[in-house]
């Protein structure tokens, strides 16, 4: 009976849905904007600016 009530997604539909959440992408963009790399005598330090 189950198959009468459930619609099987096509492979295309399944793949279409596969992508990261908007929050994740937004977090990465914000992280990138906040990250500053400082070069101090050849050593690179990463700092996160608020």
């Amino acid at each position, binding site marked *: 009976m189950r198959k009468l009530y459930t619609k099987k997604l096509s492979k295309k539909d399944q*793949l279409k849905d*596969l*992508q*990261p*959440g908007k929050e*994740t*992408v937004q*977090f*990465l*963009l914000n*992280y*990138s*904007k906040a*990250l500053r*790399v400082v070069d101090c005598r050849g050593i*690179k330090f*990463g700092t996160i600016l608020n």
Partner: protein
Amino acid sequence: MNNVEITDAVLVREYMQGNENALSKLINRHQHRIYSFIFSKVYDRDVSEDIFQDTFIKVINTLKRGKYNEEGKFLPWVMRIAHNLVIDHFRRNKRMPKFDNSGDFNIFSVLSDSDLNIETQIIKDQIENDVKELIKELPEDQLEVLTMRIYKDMSFKEISERTGVSINTALGRMRYALINLRKIIEKHNLVLTN
């Protein structure tokens, strides 16, 4: 007319020069492929999300530090990072497996919270008070042994020394105390269960 797609190499260069929009374009361009790749290995949305995030954090850190030198091979490079993080995930999971509660078996049906809730705590207190009242009906010598054993947690050796009787007598008094206590409970028609 602006149909010519900017190559990954150009976007990477622009990003390394400080153009944050270039990163947004790179993520938008490749997110589906990278995320699908991760998901095809781990089959878990949340884990895929975490690995995708960690992948790009590594990408961002490398690019910002100017360590990237694989021009023209951006996607294979990111895929390699994602692949390594997927392997790390499985290694970690092997050491500390994650319990998936999505199947027919529910772990919470066999695991229970041993702490009493407020209702069972009230019932327990009430039963203990009832028992304290009931034992007062026991003969003095039996009451003495039962109190020392149950409430003062004394051994039968200590009880025998304290009361001046043999251990066997103390054991016998305890036995009769319990038998008589059951009789008292039956007489009063009490149900002392939680």
